[in-house]
């Protein structure tokens, strides 16, 4: 009889709910030779994972780092671009954080700030794609898909990768990786999240008891179908996918129903608070963060929480304030809850956008900002990252990263590393060559970010 392992080894898009890791472990038991190259040759025993899942707080549009986490006071007598909002030192670490983020700032000692990010282009679409997939010109599997492919799911009732208030499909697509590793979108970009759900997660045309009866009947047909083709992996896959779908529809709506959350929790997360100012869209970011916590608790591997609106070209100050106000308290609540539940230990939070912005010059009247891909900020929290730590540095005017520079591919390699995956070994054979998230160029794991 055909084994699932054979199936996965040979079919580029075979079914099977085994992750690469599980597969390799099986293989390691089965054989001492190196694993088949078309599924990568990860030697998983050598990295000790510090995280089991990732919550990616994706700040699309390019958050202004110099008014949030990269403090650039004026130096010398001549005014130069820098921070225009006041900063304060926070926590025991004395980390500088802007007054625009008062709630998040309370968790300063949990944050691991990278002030020396850089990337290749100041074009939104391309850089956004690169942030998500490692490649800016071609469509490639999303980071969440790579991670699902590498680690599989922890919860058989849910997809392993969800994308809340998802941007366009190209950033949560599994592309050439098997489709089951694609992100499941919940709500689309800029949409009010209050009503957003998983596509077709429920249907009104059948009462629950009939649904169950229907499933039993169709599965019995399918099993008969399978009986004439014993071991056929595709038909087994149909049967399993229907069971998962059925479980998902019973499980996911409940997971996404916030009615059993206390009033205080909803308030802490600012659920339902929808600011609509300039570029800041009323998306109910608080609900997204609360959902992220619930998905993390339920064992979803990669959760992206998207907030658009950081591209405040005009009205920089007003719109930035609105964006910060929108994300600040919900993120703080998320950090607080994850910590209280012990989940922060193995959940890596990643905050940042496709690039940053140049600073404004205080008092010169200008309130417009552009894009800056040469130096900007990301922060990590949890998942073994070093709290209260600031990595790298930009120049005096913040125009470029000058010390300990970290490229997107280094960030990707680092995230994979925290999950116990080697970036140069998590590969997939497609179109005649092996692909990896970090692309053909060498990526560096930033070990300094972990304690």
């Amino acid at each position, binding site marked *: 009889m055909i084994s699932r392992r054979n199936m996965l080894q040979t079919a580029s898009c075979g079914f099977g709910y085994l992750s690469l890791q599980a597969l390799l472990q099986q293989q390691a038991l089965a054989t001492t030779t190196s694993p088949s190259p078309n599924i990568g040759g990860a030697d998983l025993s050598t990295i000790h994972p510090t995280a089991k899942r990732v919550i990616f707080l994706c700040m699309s549009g390019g958050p202004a780092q110099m008014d949030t986490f990269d403090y650039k006071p004026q130096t010398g007598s001549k005014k130069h671009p820098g921070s225009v909002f006041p900063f304060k030192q926070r926590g025991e670490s004395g980390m500088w954080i802007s007054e625009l983020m008062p709630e998040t700032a309370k968790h300063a000692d949990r944050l691991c700030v990278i002030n020396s990010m850089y990337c290749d282009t100041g074009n939104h679409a391309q850089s956004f794609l690169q942030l998500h997939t490692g490649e800016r010109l071609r469509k490639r599997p999303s980071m969440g898909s790579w991670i699902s492919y590498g680690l599989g799911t922890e919860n058989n009732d849910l997809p392993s990768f969800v994308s809340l208030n998802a941007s366009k499909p190209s950033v949560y697509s599994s592309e050439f990786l098997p489709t089951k590793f694609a992100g499941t979108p919940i709500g689309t970009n800029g949409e009010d999240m209050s009503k957003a759900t998983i*596509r077709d997660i429920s249907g009104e045309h059948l009462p629950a008891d009939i649904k169950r009866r229907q499933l039993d009947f169709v599965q019995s047909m399918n099993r008969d179908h399978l009986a004439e083709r014993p071991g056929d992996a595709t038909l087994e896959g149909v049967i399993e996918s229907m069971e998962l779908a059925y479980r998902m529809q019973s499980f996911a709506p409940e997971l996404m129903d916030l009615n059993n959350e206390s009033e205080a929790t909803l308030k802490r997360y600012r659920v339902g608070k929808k600011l609509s100012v300039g570029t800041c869209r009323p998306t109910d970011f608080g609900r997204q963060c609360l959902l992220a916590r619930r998905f993390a608790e339920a064992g979803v591997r990669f959760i992206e929480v998207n907030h658009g609106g950081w591209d405040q070209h005009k009205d920089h100050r007003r719109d930035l304030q609105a964006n910060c106000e929108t994300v600040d308290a919900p993120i703080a609540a998320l950090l607080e809850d994850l910590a209280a539940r012990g989940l922060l230990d193995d959940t890596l939070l990643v905050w940042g956008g496709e690039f940053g912005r140049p600073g404004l010059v205080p008092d010169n009247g200008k309130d417009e900002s552009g894009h800056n891909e040469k130096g900007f900020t990301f922060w990590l929290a949890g998942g073994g990252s070093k709290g209260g730590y600031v990595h790298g540095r930009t120049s005096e005017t913040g125009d470029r990263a000058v010390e300990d520079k970290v490229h997107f591919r280094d960030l990707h390699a680092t995230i994979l590393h925290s999950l116990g995956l080697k970036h140069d070994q998590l590969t997939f054979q497609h179109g005649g060559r092996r692909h990896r998230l970090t692309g053909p160029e060498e990526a560096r794991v930033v070990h300094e970010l972990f304690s």
Partner: protein
Amino acid sequence: MMGSRSNLICQRPVGLRPTDDAVWRCVVVLIALVCGHAGVNCFGNDTAPLFETVVQPIFADKCGKCHGETVRKGDLDLSSMAGIRQGGESGDPLLGESIDESRLWEVIADGEMPPDDQQPLTDGERQLISDWISAGAHSNRSVESTVESIDQHDVLPILLLRCNTCHGPRIRQGGVDLRSRESMMTGGKNGPVMIPGDADASLMIKRIESNACPPSESLLKFFVRRPPTSEVETLRRWIDAGAPESTIVADVQTDRPDPLVTDQERQHWSFQPPKKSHRFDSIDGFIADSLHSAGLDFEVEADRDTLIRRVYIDLIGLPPSQREYAHWRDSKDPEWYSSMVDQLLASNHYGERWGRYWLDLAGYADSEGGISADPIRDDAWKYRDYVIDAFNKDKPYDRFLIEQLAGDELIDHVNAKVITQQMVENLTATGFLRMGIDETGSRTMNFVPERLKVISDAISVVSGGLMGLTMECARCHSHKYDPIPQRDYYRLKAIFQGALDEHDWDSFKTRTLNVATAEHRRQVELVNPPLQAEVKRLESSHKKITVTLQMQLLRDHYPDQSEDDNKATVAALKTADNNRTLKQKVLVERLVKAELRPDTEQSQKVLGLRQSLSEIERSIDHTRRKMAPSTSIRALWDLGRPSPTYILRGGEHDKPGAPVGPGVPSVLTDGKTPFEIRAPFPDGTPKSGRRLALARWLTDPNHPLTSRVMVNRIWFHHFGSGLVKDLENFGVKGSRPTHPELLDWMAIEFARQGWSVKQMHRQILNSRTYRQSSHVTPEKFQLDPQNQLLSRMNLRRLDAESLRDSLLFVAGKLDTTPGGLPDTVSIDQDGMVSINPTGDGGLRRSVYQQFRRTEIPSMMDTFDYPQMGPNCLSRNVSTVSPQALMMMNNGRVHDLAVAFADRVANKVDPGGEVQYADWVDTVYEMALSRSPSPQELSLGVESLRQLESSWHGNSHQALQTYCHTILNSASFLFVD
């Protein structure tokens, strides 16, 4: 550009080789002892290791096979110091100032070279090489060398990149043409722009250095960037040197052996022409032979019901109607099967099914794609109809390729007295090369790098789709696995240069041709004017009713809002989203909220207005469809003036290397026969004839890849797996054919039978191999787990199109009108993308939906509809829960199940007593084209009974649920 390499003695662009030794007209100097690094004192250093005594033997032994004088992989010759100094195709110096900068040492130290499958260097050898480089890479030989040389090939690429738009083929600003030395000296209205020997006095230098050229206002208009200082330096040096011209000509295939590709590499199975096997003369012969060798035999023939459904879905993508099914089931004709095959091949639905596969390969899309915007391509559908028609007509595959690759070079339509339908078809066919993602219509994305991406997509479609070769790698460096040097990528690029010229680019506005037959034009004049007026009228009333609807919504939901505010809201909609005032934004948001309220909270008036709007929309669509199609064709045509093509080092648009001429991958030739090109219309419209030459070469019956790749695709679509598993990679790393002799036999048959695709279908469908049952025994699983030997038929899932089309068909909702304007898609409140019904209310076959890259219909998307980046050579087939969720819960799917149930109820004695068994029979016949087995019948009757009791005695609802269940079953989703 050159400054950083001043330590190199010879500064010729890498890869440039004199066609004639006499052209080394640079001053030749004899240096007593030349060392690798100028500036390092190398005299009197007696103990330093020498190339000839220490390193040369190692290189000859371990590297010589690939990097010698006759074989020069990566354009690198390690057999002499001259070769080492020259370097390889990347243009990076091999030695550098120190060992840390030495590229040569880097690849050795990293273990990159020698490659894994070659004999490695020993530690001792590595040490010797390292010592030699560290000591200064000395040589004992006097080296004949050249002092710095510079020629037109150093400057022409710069001028093409920076100046060609205003001083080239399209525009000659100030009368100046910068495309040759001669034209520079002729200059324009202000006299010569270049004075050999005097850069300071040359107008072109003055204009560039003062930033007068390129002028600021032209930078974005013409998508050029100013040359960096290094490039200006190069221009200066060339002029100061007297603007020398070398006689180096573009590198093309000659009758001399090719140093970059060896005969041994040409031995790979797929690079050799197909070989006729005389062992068997049928598909079954070859298949049976390998089955028997494995101790297996064919599975029994599938039952008649299964064969009927299998062939229907396979050839036309739809199940048979109940009448058709009964006809074939009850046929007494012993030849019923082959008659059915012939009848289906003659159906126009055949082209809709098999044309779609080709559209995947071509990357057909009704939008331009790109990451930010995704504008609609108005006339792309004409190419879609061309393809469907070509398959229906069984256009010979060689002719089909020639038209698509070079239709513009077949007949000189410009000088034709009468425009024929054939000319129109030829031009429409060239849409094939215009299907990729093309962002160059954007106001910010039309620079040379973006144009190169469009070209690279076209090359990738041609090489991957038609030849099964992955050539993209060679855009930046020689292919790592396949013997495709970087040069060959650029030779292929040169073939397209006449039409896809990054320095002479057709914008969105200029890439359609207005060519039509007289009859077509007459139709347009006769039919369209009144219809256009009608559309105008409808659009204007649509606008009015929209305003009325918006006002009504505001009045209904905000009774306290003033009428002035209501009016201001509607007015604000005319202002772009990001330009609205705060008040306008608030007002608009209120309107949006009102619009999004569910229907149950809307007044009768609102619902009525919405109804009228959708009726008008349908009328508009209906009227448009009555018009004669426009006369414009989205085509690709040769301009007759290709710019020179240069290898781009590392694929970078501003790092030109050697000039190359048009040619095809050397590994697919004998390496000695020149690639012949002739202008197709010597007395007519100038055309390079390059693509026509490519097309003729590709369609030579002896071409090693063309026929093999196509028969493998046909095989793949019939069996769900190819004889060569990777449809897109016949190269060294691709999988070998499971049945090499059969593949070759079919490839030869294909060409022999006039490249008839339908003939190939007949061969396959009538074979015993195809007619096997898909049942499996445990024994077969053991011996042939992947079914590589075809010991049974594969089970296949319906693809997105046949699933949707079959659902509509079974529900009696399929509109089979062929061709014409694509059916638009829309996004509903939940982000669901769906295909809109046409004006007549029908839902047409999926091949006619508008393929907008950013708006893939949700259902199609869930079932692995491709995204086209740039094309799709084989679709993913996934089995995931979102598919199950969609089939179980999606409202539209359920609606179709309800419609299906109505059809069933109407067929089975409407009004009579309910007969569950008849229902079950009818449902099976209509949805699955078969009768239920006794067990299935009793399971069905039992289910209906239970469902009826769940539905409190409502038997019709029970039938609906039953029908919905059947549509969810693997029996419906798969073809046995």
